[in-house]
């Protein structure tokens, strides 16, 4: 009984502490990004190839003006589990970019059309050039952005997230930022010059101008050309860019689970058999 009482006391203490903490947290943090349903969620989740292709289109026509994606190679576009472009299509994309190569025989650097093995060239030669062109702000590289952003679930939700396999805080956050712009900040919010109000951005003042508007990117497959859809597609594309082996990982994961469950089950029954005589000694 005493043990129970002390456990109850400890739990009560923990709950009151976390309530205390949540009040502190609520005062500072931006609104929690809505959790969307992604095709790549859960144990059997896979990327939606058409969505990745649309997302790539958004990246190419909008984001790539300012954001680099240095760790992505043109060849990756044709990788299994990716946007599922053919190698020829990926090569065409590559050839439409100019990459710097060299030095040549004369010791000079030169420009040439990209090849499959090349990486996406950055829009600016270096960070300083980007800052100079964009009024001081530095757009982050997008290669692993979808894993580098998240929103803390807080207690007790983070515990449930381990069971529901929630790993999409990054794409949820990116989608939220892209759809969270508001023309007018709430009354009393002083917006510093060169920033916009975004209800999901920590601190709300974001230096990136609202990048997407309805109808900006042409979709040929009948998908609605809305900011919300663009935001979903680019977030999915960036998740793939950050975690290109997700399909393979979940597929192998299922095989490993089947194997481990069978193995562990066999070990359990072997254990029972081995220990039988110890637990049920023959009466002499």
């Amino acid at each position, binding site marked *: 009984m005493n043990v129970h009482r002390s456990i109850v006391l400890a739990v009560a203490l923990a709950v009151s502490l976390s309530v205390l903490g949540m009040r502190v947290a609520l005062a500072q943090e931006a609104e929690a990004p809505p959790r969307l349903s992604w095709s790549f969620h859960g144990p059997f989740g896979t990327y939606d190839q058409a969505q990745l292709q649309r997302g790539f289109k958004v990246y190419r026509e909008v984001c790539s003006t300012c954001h680099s994606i240095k760790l992505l190679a043109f060849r990756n576009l044709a990788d299994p589990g990716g946007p599922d472009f053919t190698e020829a299509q990926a090569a065409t994309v590559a050839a439409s970019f100019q990459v710097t190569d060299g030095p040549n025989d004369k010791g000079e650097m030169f420009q040439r059309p990209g090849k499959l093995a090349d990486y996406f060239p950055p829009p600016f030669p270096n960070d300083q050039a980007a800052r100079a062109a964009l009024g001081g702000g530095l757009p982050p590289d997008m290669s692993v952005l979808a894993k580098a952003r998240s929103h803390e679930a807080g207690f007790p939700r983070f515990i449930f997230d381990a069971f529901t396999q929630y790993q999409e805080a*990054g794409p949820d956050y990116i989608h939220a930022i892209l759809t969270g712009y508001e023309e007018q900040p709430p009354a009393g919010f002083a917006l510093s010059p060169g920033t916009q109000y975004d209800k999901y951005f920590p601190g709300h003042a974001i230096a990136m101008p609202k990048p997407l508007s309805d109808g900006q990117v042409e979709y040929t497959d009948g998908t609605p050309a809305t900011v919300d859809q663009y935001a979903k597609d680019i977030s999915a594309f960036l998740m793939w860019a950050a975690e290109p082996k997700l399909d393979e990982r979940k597929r192998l994961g299922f095989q490993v689970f089947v194997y481990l469950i069978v193995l562990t089950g066999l070990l359990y029954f072997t*254990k029972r058999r081995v220990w039988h005589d110890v637990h049920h000694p023959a009466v002499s």
Partner: protein
Amino acid sequence: MSAHSIYKPQSSLMQWLERRLPIASLVYSSFIVYPTPRNLNYWWTFGGILTFMLGAQVVTGIVLAMHYTPHVDFAFNSVESIMRDVNYGWLLRYLHANGASFFFVAVYAHIVRGMYYGSYKDPREVLWILGVILFLLMVVTGFMGYVLPWGQMSFWAATVITNLFSAIPWVGDPIVSWLWGGYAVGNPTLNRFYSLHYLLPFVIAGVVVLHIWALHMVGQNNPTGVEAKAEKDTVAFTPYATIKDAFFIGVFCLFLAWFVFYIPNYLGHSDNYIPANPGQTPTHIVPEWYYLPFYAILRAIPSKLLGVIALLASIVLLAFLPWLDTSRVRSAKYRPLYRQFLIVFFLVVIGLGYLGSRPPEGGYVIAARILTAYYFVFLLIILPLLGLFETTKPLPNSISESVLAPPQPSAAKV
């Protein structure tokens, strides 16, 4: 049950080997006929799980090292190239990173078991101290490993933790520069952390040998805390303990696989996917989850030096448990008061872990101070006094009595 039978080589080859290097008889006596108490529960499988995890970490780590570049300009991208271009590199890295977490899950379970059943008491003091040394080595190794991907959290964790040494009076700052190999965390720091991260697991392996050696000198404790006296109190290590350990390693691997394959970044911090940037401090610098209770203790103390001392003391004091605990009864099963205080102690450590992940402000600080106070009061005051005043329950005469003839409800009043 031939608990004390001696290995007799059958083939002439093994006879030849036995006269030159009696390794087969060592294995035979240590891992086959070695007597192990018959009443061990599944808490006793974590030793085997830890050995397994050490092996798994060494194997995945060595392969990762073949592809990793310990240089501030290349480390982050080399880890990403492992994730993208190395065959099953993503698997190796997620196994290694989540494996470190599960290594700590297992070591905490192992420590909880040791404290609950009084496994540190005479004659197992040296065994226990070696265990505390192993835990310290794991803490250092894990920390250095976390620095290697050279993300934002890697860099700032390295900065915060190495800066703790600056709290030492007079020689603090020179020590910190010496650790860094410069005047800030930089390439020399990353290089030496990599070198030590590769070295320390083998030091751990060496101490594990001593730990197992000490264990085999004194024998295993068991849930009753009563020493094995007769042959019927024990069973042979193989097949009994071997199959039980193997089964539970399977269960443990299922948990690990859940994280590796389905939520590989759940235990990590998203900021560590941002390349290290010495010019930009993250909003909240938090260590890996397994250090959070100690981090909370560090921050609960207003003075930096005292905080560092408390942090160190919170681990080192554990080595003195055999002497802080004055009770002659080992197992918490027969110590009702100790059991209650100990369970609260475990809950306090979990609470400290939660507080370590929160920003050090407002109610969190007050709560962390209360829980830190309990941590030390338990170890330094409650434990020594309990042994003197606690009325313990009657112990069974032997292990086999506790297993084979469970006391009747009426006998429990005795």
